């Protein structure tokens, strides 16, 4: 059997196992409650197809030992096989659970699961649809490798956008109604998903726009930008910035209360990500205990501002406490940074992991209880006046700090300091032999990272009003690290996007929160396979991880249509 076909079968088997898994843990049933396209397919029913699509795509990524792709026909065959096997296993699962009663072990192996997998059709028709649709999905996934690049890109972006639109129905609908466009809402959305017409429109529009941009728009735009005089270009830039600023300022009003709440959470994680990005992305120091800084910031704010702080309660305002938060940040940064100066790579990661846990355990301990309240935490932390503890209001201080942090990070990245960090990340001993004081720049990275982390913690405390030690567990560190990896290490916009995807989406999809970690894990695994440099990588990361594909990308660069290159690179 040839290698391409074998790859298709193996990946199909794996996808089949994934199908069985999501079916039996109940994710599929739970997604059944949401329509993807009204009257045609629910999210739950679409799940096996999405898995088949991904399987087909992965199967088609075959490279021979010489790095050559397989001929187009073989790729399509492999993709179709992967889809077929994946759908076939799902169909067998249905046969199995209808014949053998396993619901006493797997409570989800129910009639609802069967109807979900069968698109609400009867046994025979249902399995045929499932298998055929899976095969087609696999074929489509593989076809993305065979089609010309820009068409494949447009198709995949179109599919993703459509899916996101359907998922976001409650919020997009609310936004449209807020803006007085109820008619558009009714036209596009229905019953928790897109209408049939809506789905077609969204898909067609996103494909067409992406296609036009990839083939012409980007090139034309950059040519026009180049043709402009410097002062014209500056004006264009200013207009763009002003538009973004206005949008950011009006965002809470546009999106409403519920979504503003999500925005504040995202903002806090953006700040956290920007700080960790300095430590990990710029300076290359893998810090797994970043939550320590977050916790210190939150507790410093709480103790200094809350009237119910147990021992010491100066009841400062949020803003008066801020300088002390920064001082605390600098101290904790040095405290963590100094002992680990001589550690590299894995060792550094393990030690910082320890620091993160130490922080949480100290705040939880009996020993520190008189000051920080132990497990009861600290209550009634005031909001940062003049802003109220209302998502639409507290959004603004968070926005301000995020903007300041982002601008600061960008200017640092493109300065003497950023170069020194980069050099250190590349090769520590050579950096030192070239004149970079690694001691100084490591401490600086930890110090600034701590400052951002502490600010983020301070805002968290002020936003939420009550803090407990258990808000500061290792998941915060992992989230922060995952979001910069997902977004694209070293890139500011990557951090924002990563926070939106990893923190924002789960907040929006609370109804499926049981499966949050499952989805989270799957997303990270798939990302690391498909796009290890993250969604919006810095040029550096991209270069590191794609040595082989360099030539391909350079070709794209020359055409001036490389959308993957971020606006700000480090």
């Amino acid at each position, binding site marked *: 059997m040839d290698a391409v076909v074998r790859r298709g079968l193996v990946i199909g088997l794996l996808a089949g196992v994934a199908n069985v898994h999501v079916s039996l843990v109940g994710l599929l049933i739970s997604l059944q409650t949401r329509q993807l396209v009204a009257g045609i397919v629910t999210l739950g029913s679409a799940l096996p197809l999405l898995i088949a699509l991904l399987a087909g795509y992965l199967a088609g990524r075959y490279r021979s030992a010489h790095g050559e792709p397989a001929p187009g026909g073989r790729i399509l065959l492999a993709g179709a096989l992967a889809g077929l096997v994946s759908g076939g296993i799902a169909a067998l699962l249905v046969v199995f659970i209808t014949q053998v009663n396993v619901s006493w072990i797997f409570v989800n192996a129910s009639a609802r699961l069967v109807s979900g997998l069968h698109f609400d059709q009867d046994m025979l028709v249902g399995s045929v649809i499932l298998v055929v649709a899976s095969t087609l999905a696999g074929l489509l996934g593989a076809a993305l490798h065979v089609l010309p690049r820009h068409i494949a890109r447009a198709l995949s972006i179109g599919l993703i956008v459509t899916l996101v639109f359907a998922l976001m129905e409650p919020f997009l609908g609310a936004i449209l109604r807020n803006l007085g466009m109820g008619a558009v809402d009714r036209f596009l959305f229905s019953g928790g998903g897109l209408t049939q017409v809506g789905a077609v429109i969204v898909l067609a529009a996103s494909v067409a726009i992406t296609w036009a941009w990839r083939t012409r728009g980007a090139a034309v735009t950059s040519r026009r930008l180049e043709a402009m005089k410097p002062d014209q270009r500056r004006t264009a830039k200013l207009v763009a910035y002003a538009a973004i600023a206005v949008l950011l300022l009006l965002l809470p009003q546009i999106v409403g209360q519920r979504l503003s709440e999500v925005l504040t959470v995202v903002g806090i994680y953006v700040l956290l990500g920007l700080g960790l990005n300095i430590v990990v992305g710029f300076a290359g120091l893998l810090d797994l205990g970043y939550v320590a800084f977050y916790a210190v910031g939150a507790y410093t704010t709480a103790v200094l501002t809350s009237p119910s702080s147990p021992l010491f309660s100066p009841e400062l305002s949020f803003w008066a406490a801020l300088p002390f938060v920064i001082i605390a940040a600098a101290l904790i940064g040095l405290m963590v940074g100094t002992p680990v100066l001589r550690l590299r790579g894995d060792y550094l990661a393990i030690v910082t992991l320890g620091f993160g846990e130490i922080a949480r355990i100290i705040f939880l301990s009996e020993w520190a209880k008189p000051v920080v309240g132990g497990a009861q935490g600290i209550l009634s932390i005031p909001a940062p006046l003049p802003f109220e503890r209302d998502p639409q209001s507290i959004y603004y201080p968070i926005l301000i700090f995020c903007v300041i942090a982002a601008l*600061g990070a960008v*200017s*640092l990245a493109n*300065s*003497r*300091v*950023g*170069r*020194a960090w*980069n*050099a250190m990340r*590349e*090769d520590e*001993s*050579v*950096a*030192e*032999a*070239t*004149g*970079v*004081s*690694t*001691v100084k720049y490591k401490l*600086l990275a930890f110090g*600034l990272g701590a400052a951002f982390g502490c600010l983020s913690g301070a805002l968290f405390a002020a936003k939420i009003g009550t803090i407990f030690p258990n808000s500061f567990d290792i998941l915060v560190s992992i989230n922060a690290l995952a979001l910069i990896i997902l977004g694209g290490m070293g890139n500011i916009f990557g951090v924002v996007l990563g926070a939106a995807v990893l923190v924002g989406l789960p907040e929006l999809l609370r109804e499926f929160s049981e499966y949050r970690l499952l989805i989270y894990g799957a997303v990270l695994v798939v990302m690391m396979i498909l796009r290890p440099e993250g969604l919006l990588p810095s040029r*550096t990361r991209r*270069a*590191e991880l794609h040595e082989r594909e*360099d030539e391909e990308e350079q070709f794209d660069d020359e055409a001036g249509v490389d959308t993957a290159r971020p606006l700000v690179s480090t």
Partner: protein
Amino acid sequence: MTDSTHATTPEPVTPHAHTHGSAGAPAGDVILSARNVTMRFGGLIANRDVNFDIPRGGIVSLIGPNGAGKTTFFNQLTGMLIPTSGDIAFQGQSIVGMAPNEIVALGIGRTFQNIRLFGNMTVLNNVMVGRHVRLKAGWWASLLKLPHVRREEAETRQRARELLDLVGLKRNYEDDWAKNLPYGDQRRLELARALASDPKLLLLDEPTAGMNPGETARMTALIKRLRDELNLTVLLIEHDMKVVMGISERITVLDHGELLAEGRPEEIRSNPAVIEAYLGKGAASA
């Protein structure tokens, strides 16, 4: 056999250089002097009692068979290793125990035997990092992009481009990744990075290794030109005897970690001890 003017007058070649001048040459003549430098790694002695002076403005070669301890010696001069005993003085100031970056700041720049560029940084940024020690922008000023920082950045960029020109790297390479440059250009880039710190003493570890004869000739000419135009002192480790004999004013030979001989090229060429170290016993008399 002790002498005070070895930098300028020819002296008899000494098979055992311990005797070779520790009683100070005039400080103005010697830019770097090593006294009884010994480096031990556990039981292994990489350098034993090496005494070594580099005359200011000279081009001096350090040669010797593989494993003679040449690179180890280099690493001690740049602070990457700290000698087990002995002293190294640069312009009269002891540099033993200083961090590598402090030594760079004093004015010693180096390149590496196996090219060690910052591969995932652009060509221009590699050179700009090299300039790091001469820049003043602190983190606070960089964060705020204060006017003097912008000015300094612009000047640094300008200077880096000049250095790229000087070492003969094409302008259109400057935004490429350092790791994507052809081999010979990577060597040039490493040289530009070292020059960016305005060194007084430049240490080159096999600058022509892996180059073809044409590239080698150009590199040799470049080194000479750099010395003359930038008032440098150059110490190089080199295996290519043609290069060594063609470029060096003085040659020092290390063997098994010890100083074997020191002298002008023609003296070294005819020194029986050196020939024996390179070619084995009997070769000198043959």
